[in-house]
């Protein structure tokens, strides 16, 4: 499969003196589920913002579907890349269905209304995310997990091949974290979408993602298959935290060991 996102020699800093991302190059093939992980301040959200053109690079290029990102107009770019940001509830009480329908804004007719195709796409997005049941409820009345599913539904309704997510599971309990990742994985597998998601949960990333981009605070980065990038050594180097590594089938999992961590001995599949 060809690369849908190509990043070449990308550098960025919020001030001329400061450089948060240095000379980063990578490619993401269409249909891949990639997690961006790394410590706070490493530039994960900055990279995501560069990938959707919310920020302009200091140097380097980003291509989406082989076309430089700056060549797209905003409507065309929305047709290629949909973004789910960290939870934001608008001041005024839009309903769930109104929120999801907004993803179709670039396709509205002259008088600003949706057509049958738009409605069908919105319905499919609501069904896929299991949010059709509360379509008419105000967004503010939903729980955090439900709201996050609505924002994913809105991103799906954009019908774009690439989905960028900024910590989609922050503030969610375990059940909802797993629920969101199940939803993203099925979206990847069933609709062939390319998913790029920032996460702080390396175990969820290890379990669900095909590739990991590990950004270090020192500007170093590693990209590759999950098993090649996540190791106790690498994690300790990037996060400065020792971890215990166990295995669950083919996947490894990591338990961070703090100063007061209890010696839990050997963990095996049997214990889990």
């Amino acid at each position, binding site marked *: 499969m060809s690369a849908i996102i190509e990043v070449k020699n990308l550098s960025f800093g919020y001030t001329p003196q400061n450089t948060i991302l240095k000379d980063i190059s990578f490619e993401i093939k269409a249909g891949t589920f990639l997690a961006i992980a790394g410590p706070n301040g490493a530039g994960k959200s900055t990279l995501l913002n560069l990938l959707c053109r*919310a920020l302009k690079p200091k140097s380097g290029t980003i291509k989406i579907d082989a076309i430089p990102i700056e060549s797209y107009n905003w409507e065309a*770019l929305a047709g290629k890349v949909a973004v789910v*940001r960290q939870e934001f509830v608008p001041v005024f009480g839009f309903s769930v269905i109104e929120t999801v329908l907004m993803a179709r804004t670039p396709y509205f007719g002259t008088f*600003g209304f949706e057509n049958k195709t738009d409605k069908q796409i919105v319905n499919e997005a609501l069904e896929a995310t299991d949010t059709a049941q509360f379509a008419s409820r105000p967004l503010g009345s939903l729980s955090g997990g439900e709201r996050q599913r609505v924002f994913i539904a809105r991103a799906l309704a*954009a019908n774009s091949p690439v989905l960028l997510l900024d910590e989609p599971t922050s503030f969610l309990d375990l059940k909802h974290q797993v629920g969101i990742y199940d939803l993203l994985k099925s979206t990847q597998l069933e609709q062939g979408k390319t998913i790029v998601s920032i996460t702080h949960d390396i175990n969820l990333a290890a379990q669900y993602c095909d590739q990991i981009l590990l950004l270090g605070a020192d500007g170093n980065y590693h990209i590759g298959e999950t098993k090649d990038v996540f190791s106790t050594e690498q994690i300790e180097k990037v996060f400065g935290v020792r971890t215990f590594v166990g295995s669950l089938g083919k996947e490894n999992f990591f338990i961070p060991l703090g100063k007061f961590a209890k010696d839990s001995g050997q963990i095996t599949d049997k214990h889990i």
Partner: protein
Amino acid sequence: MKELLTPKKLVIRTVSALTVLAVVMFTCSLIGTESISLKAVFGGADIQESVNPDYEIFVKVRLPRIILACLVGAALACSGVVFQALLRNPLADPYILGISSGAGLGVIIAVISGLDWMLLGRSPIAFFAFAGALGTIWLVWFIGRLTGKFHVTGLLLAGVVVNAFFSAVIMFLTSIAKSQQVYSTIFWLMGNITEEDFLVLWLGAGFVVTGILALFYISPQLNALSFGEEDARSMGVNIARTQLIAFGIAAAITAIAVSLSGLIGFVGLLVPHAVRLIFGPDHRQLLPLSGIFGAIFLVIADTLARVIIAPAQLPVGVVTAILGGPFFLVLLVKYSRKVSWLR
């Protein structure tokens, strides 16, 4: 998908609201200290070689006043909708970014300078108010942009500071002005609907209606902007263009309203909220309906201002505040469950 706004629903609601507006305009045109007969009005300007008083009152006094109330009410309400959307702030109104103090400053400068030239048969007060309003909003926009591209907090703070500074200048100028000049300024600041020149009315109406139609055209983008700039951008909205158009038009129609009628408060805050509470936050509907209900509200308020202490008249701004406050509170309690910002 029953809950979604459809073109049919929008047309039905807009036409119904326009019908209510027509009924209100007609009824209010018959109310006043002098009772007039419609039959006599249709008799024409002259009867038996003398002036027809009913026609004179209807056409030269009440009709222009009602038309002016309509256009000022519609302009302020639509401008309120836009500022609330752009600033994502339920407390925003057309005056939040300093238009009121800018216009007030223009007025007191015109009054104190004692300028006596006329343009289009008008004193310079209206022109100074218009220039003061637009100049101030440009200044706030300029300062706001220094804090970042359309940085909402920066813009709001710039508005607050400019407002406070100009208010202080107004107080200073008022304290050194003559008592007659102070009276003229305060009378203007309280807001009054008086206009006799149909050319000015049609020009004003033309600009306001064109502005509202242009705002309606970008209403889907205003919906997306309610979720913040970054979200709206990722939904394909050209943020810079939408903000510039919305901000420019809202500022221009507010400046027109302010220069024609002085400072009339509450309309731009209450009407958008009332319409939002009843019909929902979708700007495709909120804009036209707020415009029409703003017109209805101000026509009624101005009629009350004409008759409550007749033969004297109240400033309409007093009536909008007294009438609007309790009316809004009733709506707020009744529909509060429908809006998220109250949770």
